C-alpha cells in the first residue's frame, strides 16, 4: 500500500496554533500561525498575485527568500509587500497588485 505523502507540517512534527482566516481578492483562505502570505496563497493553489508594470504578465513567488522582489503583493492596502517574507496575520486582506500598485500617484 502506498503511503500518503506527508504535509510539511507533519514532516517537521509541527504543532501550530489554531488556524485563522485571511482573504485574497475577497476570497477567504485558511492560514496557520507563522506562515508567510506566499505560503498561504500557495497552499490555496494561488500561484500569481501581481501583474507586471509594462506587459501585465502574472507574477508570484520566485526565490521565496526575499531577494528577487517578484512576489510583491498589496496587503491591507499597502503595495509592494514581499509576500514571501511577510507573516500572515488574522484578517489580512491581500489583493492582486497591478503594476507598481501606486495608482494613487498616477496622473
Amino acid at each position, binding site marked *: 500500500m502506498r503511503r500518503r505523502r506527508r504535509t510539511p507540517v507533519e514532516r517537521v512534527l509541527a504543532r501550530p496554533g489554531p488556524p485563522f482566516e485571511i482573504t485574497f481578492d475577497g476570497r477567504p483562505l485558511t492560514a496557520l500561525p507563522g506562515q508567510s502570505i506566499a505560503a498561504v496563497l500557495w497552499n490555496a493553489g494561488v500561484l500569481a498575485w501581481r501583474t507586471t508594470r509594462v506587459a501585465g504578465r502574472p507574477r508570484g513567488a520566485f526565490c521565496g527568500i526575499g531577494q528577487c522582489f517578484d512576489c510583491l503583493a498589496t496587503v491591507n492596502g499597502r503595495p509592494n509587500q514581499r509576500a514571501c517574507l511577510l507573516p500572515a496575520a488574522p484578517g489580512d486582506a491581500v489583493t492582486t497588485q497591478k503594476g507598481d500598485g*501606486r495608482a494613487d500617484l498616477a496622473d
Partner: protein
Amino acid sequence: MVGAGVVGAACAYYAARAGLTVTVLDRGPVAGGTTGAGEGNLLVSDKEPGPELELALLSLRLWRELGERHDGPARSAEYEAKGGVVVARDETRLKALRSLAAVQAAAGVETREVPGDRLHELEPRLAAGLAGAFHYPQDAQVQPALAAAHLLRASGALVRCGERVTGLLRGPDGRVGGVRTVPSGALPAGHVVNATGVWGGEFAAAADVFLPVAPRRGFVLVTEPLPRVVRHKVYAADYVADVASGSAALQTSAVVEGTPAGPVLIGASRERVGFDRTLSVEVLHRLASQAVALFPALADVRAIRAYAGFRPYLPDHLPAIGPDPRAPGLLHACGHEGAGVGLAPATGLLIARLLTGDQPPLDVHPFRPERFDRTT
C-alpha cells in the same frame, strides 16, 4: 582605451568611426565604476559659461544623435529629452538663478523662467509656495550602464574585461607604446587613452605623470517603482553652488528624477572622504527629507535601496582631455567629476580627432592634462 565606463566607451565609439582599430581594457566589468553608480544626467543647466558648458552643449547635441536617431547606438539606453527644472524656494535664490540663466542664455543655453504660480503646469506634484523656477529643455537623461554597453557594442572595438593594467610599454625613445596587463602581459598599441575615471590619477602615476584626480563621494537613494510622479529632472537652486564648490565637507541638495523603469532617483551629496564606501545614514536622511520638501507625495513612498559612487574630481572642475606632452603616446580622458555621462560623447569625439590629427570641434587647451603640473 583603458576603462570601460561611459567615457572609454564613447572614446572607443568615435575612434572606431574615425577608422582606428580599438581595444578597450578594464580590470572590472563594463560600467563597473562611477558610470554604473550615476544617474545618467545630461545637463547644461548646472554649468556656468566657460569651457565645460561648451563641451556640454556639444555633448548634448551628440547624445541626441546617439539616443534619438532610429539607428543611434544609444537608442536602447533609455534616452529621454525630459528637460531640467531648477527651483528656487525664495526670491533671493530666484534672483541668483535669474542672473545665472541670463549668462547661460548668452552662451547658447535654452532657458526660460517659470513663475511660482505656473510651476504646476510643468510639475504637478511640486510643493506649493516655491518662488519660481527655470526650465532647461536641453537637459536630458540616459541609463548610463546601458549607454556604455551600447556604445561599446556599436564601436565594434575588442572589449577585454578582467585586464588589469600594471604598467606602460615604452619604445626606445621613451614613447608610450602600449600597456602591460595581468593576465595577458604586453599589449602594444599606437596610443593609450587613460579613461579610468576616478582612478585616472593612479593610472597617470604609472606613466610617471601627475594628475590630481580625487574621489568625491555621492549617494543615490532609489524608491520603489512609481507612476510618473516626477516629469523632469528637478533640483533645488543650491545644487548649482554645491557642484561649483571645492569643499571637502558634506554638501547635499535635492535632485529628483523619475526613470523609465519606474523608480525615482534621489541625489545629490558631495563629500571628499577618499574611497570610503560606508553607508551614511545621515546623508540618506538629508537626501530623503530634501526630496520630500520638493515633492511632498514622496513622503509615503518607500526607498528600496541606496548606492554610492565616486566622482572623479579635479581641482578646477574641468576634465583632463588630450595628449600628455610629458608622456608622448598617452592621452587622458578622465576627471569629469559628476558630469562624465553627459560629457562622454564630446570627450570621445575630441579624443578621436586628436588621435587622427584632425581639428577638434572646440578648443581643448582648457582641458590639457599637464595644467596641474607645477614644473611645466
